[in-house]
């Protein structure tokens, strides 16, 4: 075997092997769906919020993200933690994170530490201040129960485009 052939084989092994082992274990599939969150006026004077196809997003619009986890394997998946950095050029909309069967925590330091809203603080001009929704850099959902084989769950939150 020539050196060239050997190095090609080595490269193949390096790239293929991890992927093979990954596929063998990866059974939870993750999908992010996005929507435009709009307020629709009804005839009786009230309004309701709808999640629609995200066409023509402009500054000030709200974008809803739904993250769907599905266990496509044949074993239960435990200790599921979902993490979503709040996208650039958007701010988290206060109180919008949802997820049945999950505890929701936030980060104000790009995901280094997480806590519930009342335990989050920022330092501004040397003063420690309670963090507000616009300070959140990451949203984390810690699922409180396992996802059995074939089961599906979803969480969601809303951002506003700056």
């Amino acid at each position, binding site marked *: 075997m020539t050196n060239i052939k050997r190095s090609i084989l080595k490269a193949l092994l390096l790239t293929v092997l991890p992927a093979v082992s*990954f596929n063998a274990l990866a059974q939870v599939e993750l999908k*992010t769906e*996005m929507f435009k969150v709009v307020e629709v006026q009804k005839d009786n004077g009230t309004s309701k919020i709808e999640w629609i196809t995200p066409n*023509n*997003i*402009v500054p000030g619009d709200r974008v809803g993200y739904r993250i769907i986890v599905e266990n496509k394997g044949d074993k239960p998946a*435990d200790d*599921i933690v979902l*993490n979503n950095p709040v996208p650039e050029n958007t701010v988290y909309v206060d109180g919008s994170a949802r997820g049945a069967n999950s505890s929701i925590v936030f980060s104000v330091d790009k995901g280094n530490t997480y806590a519930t809203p009342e335990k989050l603080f920022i330092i501004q001009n040397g003063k420690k201040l309670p963090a507000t929704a616009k300070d959140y850099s990451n949203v984390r959902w810690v699922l409180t129960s396992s996802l059995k084989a074939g089961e599906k769950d979803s969480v969601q939150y809303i951002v506003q485009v700056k």
Partner: protein
Amino acid sequence: MNKFMVLTSLLVGSLFTLQSHGAGTSAGTTISNTASVSYEVGGSTITDDSEPAVITVQELINVTIVSQDSGNVSVSSPETGAELKFQVTNTGNGDEAFIINQVNIGGDEFDVTLSTIYLDDGDGVYEPGTDDATYDNSTPSTIAPDDSITIWVTSNIPDARNNNDTSEVQVSALSKTFSDDGQANPNAGDVVTDGGDSTTDAVYGTGAANADDTAIFVVSAIQVVITKVISGIDDQLGGSQPVPGAEVGYSLTVTVTGTGDATSVTASDPLPVELALKAGIAGTITVNGVDLTAVSGDDSASYDANTRTITVDLGTITAGSADSVITFTTVIQ
């Protein structure tokens, strides 16, 4: 919509009063969102990412137009080219030009003949046809996000109007993108496909849908105008450099036009801290060629050294009579 979504809807409803500030994220910017998951299967921890969900921010067309005149604008009857000042600000997130329209509003005493609109050259001074070019609605200048232009909207005031008659004029700004698309009266949320910057769509904003303002002309049978010019600088060194100690001469001209008498006309000139009247209250203020003392109470001219204000009581002036000219010399401190 399932029950879970309905619950979300109710809770989020009250948050819609939040507003974004400034022009916002530029048209064409992509917002990419990738979620990640970690979990355990058979004792191994596995992590994975979702495919990114990508949104491109479209161009929001928003604009404000605001009258810059404080209160009603006094005009004569008749008067040619009476000007109103407006500021047009692009509050959208992309470059946009605007078509400016002016109309007479009803419910007042008279209508004006709408005339030329001028684009201010940046100094905020009305210089029609010289420094300020005619605003061409067929090729209006593009305004960057958050930038403003100042325009002068001119009108001709009809003859034989009575004192205190008013005329209201409305000036509006329409997005050129929508105008070019044949949408002369777009509503918030209307779209021009591919009409935005960076091949985005142009979306009409709520601000753009109400982009107009009004200003009111009021006929004043008599008008008093004061102008101030520097008549000369003597630096006491044989030159004319405005250095400390230099003497700066000023000339104030008071002109009364129209018909009737202007009573209790008082010219007042508060000098900046850098200047003081030469010799202070012992100095001289010349009114229509007559030297008066700066000290208060002995004649119609006075100087207050604390506020550095020169005051001349000109009394009653009949419209059309010769200009009143006030001259004095100051010293740079």
